Structure formats: C-alpha cells, structure tokens
C-alpha cells in the first residue's frame, strides 16, 4: 500500500519533469524528406503597425510562391528582442532569421549570433547598389553578416501655418538661422522646437546628428566642436525655445508636442509621416533638412537589417527568402505598404514610388544621404549611456565644458 503511493508519486514527479522539458523546438529538424522547410523569424514590428503589415504581406506572398516553405514569425517588443536573443544564446535556441535594429547588429555579430554570409552576398552581387551607411552596420572586419532592409534618418518637421503666421518665408539652413527662427516662433507656452532627451537610446539618437554637424564625433567628445554642439542645445533649453521637459520626452512625446501645436518644429523620423497624415489631416506641415553646423548637415541612420543566425540549419533557404525580399519589384511596393524607406539606390530613385514623389518623403531620402550609422563597436550601449547622462547634465544647466570633459574620459576607453 505504502509502496504504491510512493511509486505513483515518483511517477507524477517524472511526468511533471517530462512536461517541463517538452517544449523542445520543432524547428531544429526543420527540413524533412519532402523538402519542406520551416523558417523561423523574430522581429519587433508591433502588431497593427505599418511595418508589421509589410512583414506579414512578404511572408504570405513568399509562401504562395514557394509552397514548400512555411514561416514561423514571432513578434516581441523592441526591448524584449535583445533579451530573448541573449536567452536564446544561452539556451542554444535561436530562430533562423532575425530582423534587427541596425545599431545592435555589430554587438550580436561579435556575440557569435549571426552567420557570416559573405560568400552568398558576393555571389548575389547587388550589395554595391546599397547606401554605404546601412551596409557598414551589417559588416564586421570586412565580412557581411546581414543585409540592410530599410533605412530611416532624422529630419526637421515644421508647422507651415505657424511659419506663415510668424511671417517666416525662408526655411532655416544653418544653426544660427534655425536658432533665430525657433526663437521667433517661441511665444507663451508654444515652443519653437521639440526634441527628445530621454535617458534611453532615443536621447543619444537625437543628439548625435548635432555632434556630427559640428564636425565632432564620439572620439572627440571634449573638442571645441563637440562643446559647441552641446552648448547649442543647452542654450535653446535655457532660452525656453525647447521645453526643459525634453529631458523626459521620447520621440513619440515629441510628436505629441508637434501635433498639439505646442511646438512649431520637431526633430523626428519618417515613421511619423503615416501617423500625421492619417490621424491629424488638418495639420499643415512639411519636412526640411537638419540645419547645417560648422561641418554641414548630417543626420543619423536608423533602420532594420536582415540577418541569418549562425546555428540555423536552413541558411540557404533563409538567404533565398531574404534575397527575394530585396528584389526591386518586391521591395518597392512592399516598402510603400510599410511606410519605410529603401536602403538601395535603384529602388530609392525609382520614380514610380512615393518616396520619389512625395515632397516630405523626398526630404527624408535626401537627408538619408548624409546619415551616419552608429558603428562604434560592441561597447556602444554603454557609451550611449554616458552620452545620455551628458545630455541630461547639460539640459539641467551644468557647465558644458566640464560635462563634455568628464564624459570624454568615460567613453574614450570604451571606443574600439
């Protein structure tokens, strides 16, 4: 009697343990005898967003054309994707294809997550058609670990009605002109300009263009030019041209300031265009290039890259799919659907697509030519942390020179 209960209990424990380990990934042996292939994709394109719409359309169309291929697409929120990739490394369970934010690409290359696909890319022979910046973000030591899919850059949105009311006719092209115009537009609780200064990657993303416009870079963070760039922002905050609240704003908060007409201009990316068009049709706005500093105009490159994981067993099939998405006749309509900008010149210059027709999109395409990638090696996230701190210290009124000096000391050893 006793024995019986003992055994049944042991049995139950074993059953529970077996159930726990039952979640084995079925895609590990994904190619069976009939040539059927399962490709697993991870991305962070939020459900119902325009870019997720594009991703689903791509998968659907490819499956129709290639009945032997089935996709398993998993969406995870932006911040979770990195965490899940990390857990995947630990557990040895990674998908076949990852759509990754381009500043993170290099870190994960170095972690050994992505496959070196140099041979395939060279055989394909179309990589020369792509813009330099996006391609650089997929490379490490001269080898290719992915393909840029779409790009974005920051530019300045401006409220046409407010410009007219203030009698401003010429769009500002330099820092000084920009400052004057923004000052003119600042009145009461309406600010001339809005940008994000939140303590996250978005803060760094919005500040780096100024650093480059001034002619500095992260390796010269304490130079005259870099100090000038930070001072430019600090002055605008101190004069009330930018709300001191920018310290807590991310890029969607900045959009709120703009569409509620509390800010006459904002620094933002092309992904806000569909939102402004669809949800705020009464707002009369335009896009202009970022103002030029001592070193001309410059912007920052964002966007997603395709990458194949090193452990994938269906690399050939995955590459076939990625190559297919990059065909001009596929990419053109698909990127239009997704409201994204292409990273390859032939598609970008094709007159039939909206980025070659729409005035605002065209501005972003032009700005993209001056966009630089955040290719600062694997310590970039930590460097970015220090930059965010520097921005916040400056906004809250600390002496810019000492801020830049101490930050330079922190980030120099982290640079490659």
């Amino acid at each position, binding site marked *: 009697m006793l024995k019986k209960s003992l055994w049944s209990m042991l049995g139950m424990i074993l059953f529970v343990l077996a159930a726990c380990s039952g979640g084995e990934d079925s895609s590990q042996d994904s190619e069976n005898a009939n040539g059927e292939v399962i490709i697993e994709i991870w991305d962070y394109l939020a459900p119902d967003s325009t870019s997720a719409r594009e991703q689903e359309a791509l998968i659907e169309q490819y499956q129709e054309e290639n009945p032997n291929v089935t996709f398993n697409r998993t969406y995870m929120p932006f911040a979770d994707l990195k965490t899940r990739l990390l857990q995947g490394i630990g557990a040895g369970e990674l998908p076949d294809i990852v759509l990754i934010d381009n500043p993170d690409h290099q870190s994960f290359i170095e972690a050994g997550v992505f496959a070196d696909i140099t041979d395939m890319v060279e055989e394909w022979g179309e990589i020369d058609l792509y813009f330099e910046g996006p391609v650089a973000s997929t490379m490490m030591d001269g080898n290719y670990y992915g393909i840029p899919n779409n790009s974005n850059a920051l530019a300045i949105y401006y409220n046409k009605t407010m410009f007219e009311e203030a009698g401003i006719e010429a769009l500002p092209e330099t820092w000084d002109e920009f400052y004057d115009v923004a000052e003119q537009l600042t009145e009461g609780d309406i600010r001339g300009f809005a940008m994000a200064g939140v303590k996250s990657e978005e803060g760094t993303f919005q500040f780096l263009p100024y650093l480059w416009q001034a002619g500095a870079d992260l390796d010269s963070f304490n130079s005259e030019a870099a100090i000038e760039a930070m001072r430019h922002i600090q002055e605008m905050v101190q004069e009330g041209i930018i709300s001191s609240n920018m*310290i807590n704003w991310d890029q969607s908060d900045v959009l709120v300031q703009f569409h509620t007409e509390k800010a006459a201009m904002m620094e933002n990316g092309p992904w806000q265009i569909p939102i402004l068009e669809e949800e705020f049709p009464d707002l009369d706005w335009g896009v202009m290039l970022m103002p030029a500093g001592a070193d001309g105009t410059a912007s920052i490159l964002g966007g997603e890259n395709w990458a194949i994981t090193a452990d994938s067993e269906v690399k050939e099939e995955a590459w076939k799919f990625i190559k297919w998405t990059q065909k001009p006749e596929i990419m053109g309509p698909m990127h239009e659907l997704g409201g994204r900008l292409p990273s390859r010149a032939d598609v970008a210059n094709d007159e039939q697509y909206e980025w070659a027709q729409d005035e605002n999109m065209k501005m972003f395409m032009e700005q993209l030519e001056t966009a630089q990638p955040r290719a600062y090696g694997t310590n970039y*996230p930590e460097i970015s942390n220090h930059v965010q701190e520097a921005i916040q210290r400056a906004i809250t009124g600390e002496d810019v020179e000492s801020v830049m000096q101490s930050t330079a000391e922190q980030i120099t050893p982290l640079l490659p």
Partner: protein
Amino acid sequence: MQGQFRHTFSRYMFFLPALIFVLIFMIYPIVYNIIVSFQDLTLMNLKTGGQFIGLDNYTNVLGTATFSVALKNTVIYTVSCIFFQIVIGYLLAVFLNQDFPFRNFFRSIMLLAWMTPLVITGSLFTWLFDVDYGVINYILTSLHIISEPVNWLGQQSTALTAIIITNIWIGIPFNMILILAAMQSLPKDVYEAATVDGSNKLQTFWHITLPLLRPQLLVIIVLGIIYTFKVFDLILIMTGGGPVNATTVLPFYGYQLAFVNFNFGESGVVATVILCILLIIASIYLYMMKKEEVQ
C-alpha cells in the same frame, strides 16, 4: 525500525514537490547569480561561459559613483516611502475604523490605487508632474505656493521626491487595509479600562494601541521594505533613472548593467548586494519575532 523509516520517508515525499519547486525556481537562480557575479560574463562570451575573475566585478561596481548614488537613492526611497505609507495608512485606518455611512464603500474604493497597474499610475503621475501642463504645478502656482512651475521629474533635486510621492500614493491603501485588519482584532476591554482610568487619546495610542499592534506592524514594515526595495517599474516608466542618475536605484542599475550594457557579471554583483541587504533585514525581523514570542 525499517518500517519506521519507510513511514517517515513517505511523509517526506509529500514535501518533495515543494522542495523541487524551491530548488529550481529559487535556490538555483540565487546560486547561479552569485556564481556569475564572480565571472567575466558579457554578451561576447555568453555562448561559451565566462571566466572566473575573482573579486574584479565587485571592486569595479562598488567603486563606481553610480553604485553609491543608487544605494543612497534606494535607501532614501525605501525609508521615506515606508514611513509615510504607514503613518498615513494608520491615520486612514483609524478613520475607516469608525462607524459611518458608506464605510465599506470607502474602504474598497481606497484599494483602487493599489489595484491600478503601475504602468498606468506611472504615466498618470508623469503627466500630473509635467512642467508645462501638469495639474500639480497648476494648483501650486494658483495657490501662490510657488511662483514658477517646477519641472518635478526633469531636475535632479526633485525627481526622486516626485517618484517617492507617487509610490506613497500607491502604497497607502495596502498598508491601510493591513493596519485596519490588525486594529479590528484588538480587544475592546483594554480600551474601556483605559477610558475608565482617564487616559487621553495620545496616551491610549502610545501605551495600548502601539504595543498591541507591534507584531503586525513589524510584518507590515518588513514586507513593505522588501517590496519597496525592489522598485523598478515606476522608475523605468517615469524617469528611466534620470535626470543624470538622480533616480537610479539598485534594481534599476542592475537591470541597466545586464540588459543595456550586457555586462552580466557586474549586474550579478548588484543583485547579490540587494540579496544581502534584504537577508539582513529579514534576519532582524526573525530575531525580533523570536524575542516577541519569548516574551
């Protein structure tokens, strides 16, 4: 003898599922975390496993200015939150312990603050504290308490205070309910005796209510400290640890090291420090409870 053993053994078997659960989901992560804190584990060697590097992580992390700021912030945050939550919670409990119409309605509606998800409360207070449109600034300037709107979350001197106020608001109802429950179990006759002896309200509080509530208050304080000490969501939603590091607390700092900088070893150090502090608090609590029982 044999049968005796088998008898007790089978009884211990009932204990096994719980034991396995504790081992896998509690002991293992803690031990693994301590091991990692002695390793050079980053994104680069996550696949192969980190090297043992002795106390390097500890000297690196404990030496940084950010760590001391985070520790200081955590202590200030925990102490002030618990203090105000319990004092205000107690006063409300006294109030709701009276008999008046709709008492139960008010008791339950008070819990709303506790039941609201932190993401919502956090976003809500971010708007309330807003420098341009915030209601709090509007009220304070209208009453001429301040002349200029204060950028509560945007400057180093006030950001932590603003978050503490938010968390006090969240925590009051929970403390109130616990104290209220404890108060209702107090014997009535002591109070009657005190009234007969002519003790005033304050004396009654100091000499009767407080000593009688002591064991329950101890539990509430210790639970509160543990719960408050691991604050993370509020910080992430309201300030992201900024401005500069004004609202960086230990759990947030650990998260940043692990999931932003990908330095798992150093993050392990922060987690171990948190574990040690909470262990000390828990042991003090156990010691005090034991003393209580002896009395």
